[in-house]
């Protein structure tokens, strides 16, 4: 190895380490805070060696009125019920979006018909729509219909915002499926609907799982609608983080524990599906 090559390799490893430090430090820092007592949480210089405690996780999950040093900590009993709300809302809306979205994506991918370009663009354009634009009309409608702060109201909203992304992703996966598979099923006497359910859906099941996971993540992390449309009964899990900010103090250690708990499922799913995420999100422009 000559000198130039050697220094090149050293340089690129220095860069790799630096990139990892910058991307991972905040994450590591949040996790560390979640394992500290609230007195240690924000000391400067950061305490690197400490006795980790799971107390914050316990109090986030099961609620606690006082912490170990006797200081008052905001009651945190809502976390589990908020997580249940989020699960119910996100799973139902993803399921509904799949039912409506998968056949539409299939039609856009595999058939020719009039106004196809206009329909595709319309579906895509609902994704351009900044969510804040939706908020005022729906706020007024929901107040009239009594849908404020209900799971049903959130499910309707999340189904709507997920649909375009899901159709777009699934279309990419259907595009990759050879059309001959459907044709041969048709020759064997399969109906149009049968071809979708017995051939197209099983063949693209990995894509469907990836699309569903991405829809779940998007709705799980959603914040704007949750802030405006829920207040008590249908409060979602992202809002629980804000619950640790009170007038008297911010319970950083508890907040870090809650934040970590919210993030863990997302992290696992992101890593599992990373290969399909690229292909799906770029609609087949890039293969994972």
């Amino acid at each position, binding site marked *: 190895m000559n000198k130039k090559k050697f220094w090149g390799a050293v340089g690129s490893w220095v860069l790799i380490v630096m990139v990892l430090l910058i991307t991972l430090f905040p994450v590591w*820092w949040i996790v560390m805070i979640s394992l500290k007592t609230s007195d240690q949480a924000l000391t400067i210089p950061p305490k690197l060696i400490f006795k980790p405690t799971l107390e914050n996780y316990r109090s986030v999950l099961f609620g606690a009125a006082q912490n170990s040093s006797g200081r008052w900590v905001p009651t945190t009993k809502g976390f589990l019920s908020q997580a249940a709300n989020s699960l119910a809302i996100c799973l139902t809306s993803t399921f509904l979006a799949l039912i409506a979205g998968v*056949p539409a994506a299939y039609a856009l991918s595999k058939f020719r018909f009039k106004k196809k370009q206009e329909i595709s663009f319309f579906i895509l354009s609902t994704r351009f729509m900044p969510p804040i634009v939706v908020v005022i009309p729906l706020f007024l409608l929901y107040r009239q219909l009594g849908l404020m702060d209900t799971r049903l109201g959130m499910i309707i909203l999340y189904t709507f915002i997920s649909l375009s992304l899901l159709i777009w992703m699934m279309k990419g996966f259907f595009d990759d499926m050879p059309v001959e598979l459907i044709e041969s099923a048709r020759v064997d006497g399969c109906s149009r609907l049968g071809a979708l359910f017995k051939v197209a859906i099983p063949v693209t099941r990995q894509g469907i799982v990836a699309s569903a996971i991405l829809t779940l993540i998007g709705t799980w992390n959603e*914040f704007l609608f949750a802030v405006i449309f829920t207040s008590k009964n249908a409060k979602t899990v992202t809002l629980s*983080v804000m619950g640790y900010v009170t007038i008297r103090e911010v319970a950083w250690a508890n907040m870090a524990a809650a934040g970590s708990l919210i993030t863990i499922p997302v*992290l696992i799913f992101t890593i599992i599906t990373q290969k399909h995420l690229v292909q799906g999100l770029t609609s087949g*422009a890039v293969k994972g």
Partner: protein
Amino acid sequence: MKLWKAVGKWAEKKYIFCFLAPAMIILTAFAAYITISLIYLSLCNWNVTNPSPVFTGLTNYVNIVKDPSFWKSLGRTFLYLICTVTGEVVLGFFVAYVFDKQISGMRFLRTLVLIPMAITPVVAGMFWKVMYNTSYGPVNYFLSLIGIKGPAWIASDKTAFWSVLIVNIWQWMPFSFLTITAGLHSISRDVYEAAQIDGAGKMKTLFYVTIPMMKQVLITLVLLRAIEAMKAYDLVYVMTSGGPGEATQLLPFYIYTKGFTWFDFGYAAAMSLILLVIANNLFKFFINKSGVNVFYE
């Protein structure tokens, strides 16, 4: 039973309609309701003093045109869009290039880079807010270790906008990285070998071979991230609430403030409609000009 058979037969004949109908009904109903009610509300005066909407014609629009906060928020939104997209894509490309080595263990390191993307944006925002804190935040502490006196970050109106921008880039650079890495891997090694035989250096290969071959990937990426930048809201809400002053007030947050702090629904609806029209035309223009055909071939 007969009826079911008839329905089945009809569905078989009109299959495209049946496949598209559920999604189209949901999307059309929403889009139509939102557009129509925005148009109506934007022509009304409806705020705390007027409990029910009163038709006032174009008054809201006239006031918006005269409102310096509106123009500044709009300008900031565009600046935010340009800076986040450029930052994410350029850094994502750089990091993808650096991590593009065929060594065992590289896959694992690449997965590590993705982690920020998985963090709930609100959580990321809350903790970056602490990290930026001038008295107990680690950012300025580490800067002081290497002898730099850190700025006030989100506490100063000069740096707040850029501080929020940094968090956005930190969180979403991994997405560009992931996409670009996939794009790099899709270029066959033969192409590089051919470039090498022709005597192209590393830089020449990058600019004349790699980037042109990734054109489709990069355009798609820019579009996706630009769409998200237009929606930016979470970080501003948790980190700065648009402040200090109006330094980080992007248009979506300004609409939120007008609607839900000042309860001026008519004004907020008018701004919403303007944002909607801008977003729609901007992205339509971009798609048509860029010639990305993945969206509708």
